[in-house]
């Protein structure tokens, strides 16, 4: 049974529709990440699930019960906010027990649950401190602890790592993954960082302009994106997009921006002469493969284990190439970037994937 369902859920502010009909099934214990650029509606959708924003139309059900008009505290959810939202006048212990105190939970039970959460998150020594006496990472752990003590059916995380520095982000990301494994509770997590989405999610929901573009496992979205937007959004560095024209027979594509190079990419059901976009991930370039592009290296980024070469043909767009053997490369070098045509993805003029 699906634990959380969204059926044609919409949200409008006056005449302006920000969520344009979302259908989604989230199963018990799943780690679902809403990802998308700023303004895509992912946080609004999360807040609608939390009950902090009204649902204009459509249905939200949790465990089969319609929740549209149910108070946030009665939905069986707990939320972790981007700015932590810890009550500054309360100690860590009081912050964590506050919701339980309001729910009329006996004092001993509150103490026990706070202690349990503090153990899980290693917050024991900090319980009597105020939020201002804690570091960013500690505050985030308290915010998570405050959610844990409520024993929610669903955890909602709204960009919880955005305020942390890079090192702490990685650390907290691992903590959250570990926590999910330990608690086995459903988590809905919002982020604009696709690395967070890829590393944490069982299922990613890619959003743009209030619409769900694609839902799938991280590797499904990476290997098999439904459209140009998802292909470009998932993966770092980004997928390379090359403008192409389908040749007669549909077995080859000509690349006008790359000196009219012809590559053996098959395009099904395409009219010869129609415009397509070829997508190639940076790691798919190599020294072998039947397709080849003549490029000149513009810039190099040596990361130690791998190298990113930014190359172009003439004055064309930059193409990113990831290689393990890039230490000998120099800016200005001419290279033949080869790839297997089977690894190339083809998109039509509207950005839809042609399979």
């Amino acid at each position, binding site marked *: 049974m699906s634990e959380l369902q969204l059926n044609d859920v919409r949200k409008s502010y006056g005449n302006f529709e920000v969520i344009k009909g979302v259908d989604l099934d989230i199963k018990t214990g799943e780690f679902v990440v809403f990802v998308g650029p700023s303004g895509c509606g992912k946080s609004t959708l999360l807040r609608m699930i939390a009950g902090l924003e009204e649902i204009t139309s459509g249905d939200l059900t949790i465990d089969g019960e319609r929740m549209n008009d149910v108070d946030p505290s009665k939905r069986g959810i707990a939320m972790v906010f981007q700015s932590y939202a810890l*009550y500054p*006048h309360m100690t860590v212990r009081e912050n964590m027990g506050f919701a339980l105190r309001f729910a009329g939970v006996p004092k001993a039970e509150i103490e026990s649950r706070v202690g349990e959460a503090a153990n899980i998150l290693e917050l024991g020594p900090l319980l009597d401190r105020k939020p201002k006496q804690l570091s960013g990472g500690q505050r985030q752990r308290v915010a998570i602890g405050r959610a844990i003590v409520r024993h929610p059916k669903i955890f909602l995380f709204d960009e919880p790592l955005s305020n942390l520095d890079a090192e702490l982000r990685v650390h907290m990301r691992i903590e959250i993954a570990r926590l999910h494994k330990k608690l086995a509770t459903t988590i809905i997590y919002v982020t604009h960082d696709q690395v967070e989405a890829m590393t944490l999610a069982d299922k990613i929901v890619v959003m743009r302009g209030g619409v769900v573009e694609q839902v799938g496992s991280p590797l499904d979205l990476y290997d098999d994106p439904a459209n140009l937007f998802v292909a470009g959004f998932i993966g770092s560095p980004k997928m390379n997009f090359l403008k192409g024209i389908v040749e007669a027979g549909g077995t080859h594509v000509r690349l006008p921006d790359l000196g009219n190079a012809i590559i053996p990419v098959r395009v099904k059901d395409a009219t010869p002469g129609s415009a397509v976009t070829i997508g190639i991930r940076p790691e798919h370039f190599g020294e072998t493969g039947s397709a080849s592009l003549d490029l000149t290296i513009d810039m190099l980024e040596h990361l130690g284990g791998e190298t990113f070469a930014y190359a172009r043909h003439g004055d064309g767009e930059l193409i990113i190439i990831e290689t393990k053997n890039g230490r000998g490369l120099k800016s200005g070098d001419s290279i033949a970037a080869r790839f297997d045509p089977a690894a190339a993805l083809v998109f039509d003029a509207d950005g839809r994937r042609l399979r």
Partner: protein
Amino acid sequence: MNKGSTRIAATIVTYGFVGLMAFLSIFPFVWMLFGATNSSIDIIKGRMMPGGALATNVSTFFTQVNAPLVFWNSAKIAILATILTLAVSSLAGYGFEMFRSRHRDRIYSALLLTMMIPFAALMIPLFIMMGKAGLINTHLAVVLPTIGSAFIVFYFRQTTKAFPSELRDAAKVDGLKEWQIFLFIYVPVMRSTYAAAFIIVFMTAWNNYLWPLIVLQSNEQKTITLVISSLASAYYPDYGVVMVGTILATLPTLAVFFFMQRQFVQGMLGSVK
């Protein structure tokens, strides 16, 4: 003139100006202190030294004035006005900032416009209103017109902008109703703002003169400011006694300020840390 001497001249002018301002601020206070120790004649002569008439002045003040009663009257009015103003104005400021409605900004602008109306223009209608309500010569008549302070509403709305909306969201998820969010989250988080507003409102209410003069008619209802004024306007005013009264009237506001000055400064700088 070279750069060095220009800088010295600028420093002299700055210090001179600051010194003059400091003198103008401190002089009445010093004069009040010295005046309380001198006889009325010495004060009129302009004596600016401590004198030996303090005990006489204090004794005369307590003979002429029913001090416990007038201080009680002042305290009652000031505390009541402060508590009610803070309660009403902070709720209004919170409401204006937190809740969106089509007419919010129009209503808020209208409220701010009331600050432009001089009190002299409101005195007569207010007096008639209080008369019809049967409140003339009561302390409630002094308190009621002060509690809907547009300035304090404005102050609370501006400081509420720094109140993180996520705290309100977190409280909603924790199961708090709107009034509980206000009482258990907003009020404690904004305590510096309340402290600053407390000082401003308390001082204004304690020093209020014109409106109490109009509505309080019997001696049993009068406040310390009215009593000092009546001492000063006697046929032969005893300035030494007036100064003693003034010092005593200043003490409560000074005490409030000293107890709350740290919170006051924080409140003025922005209370949410």
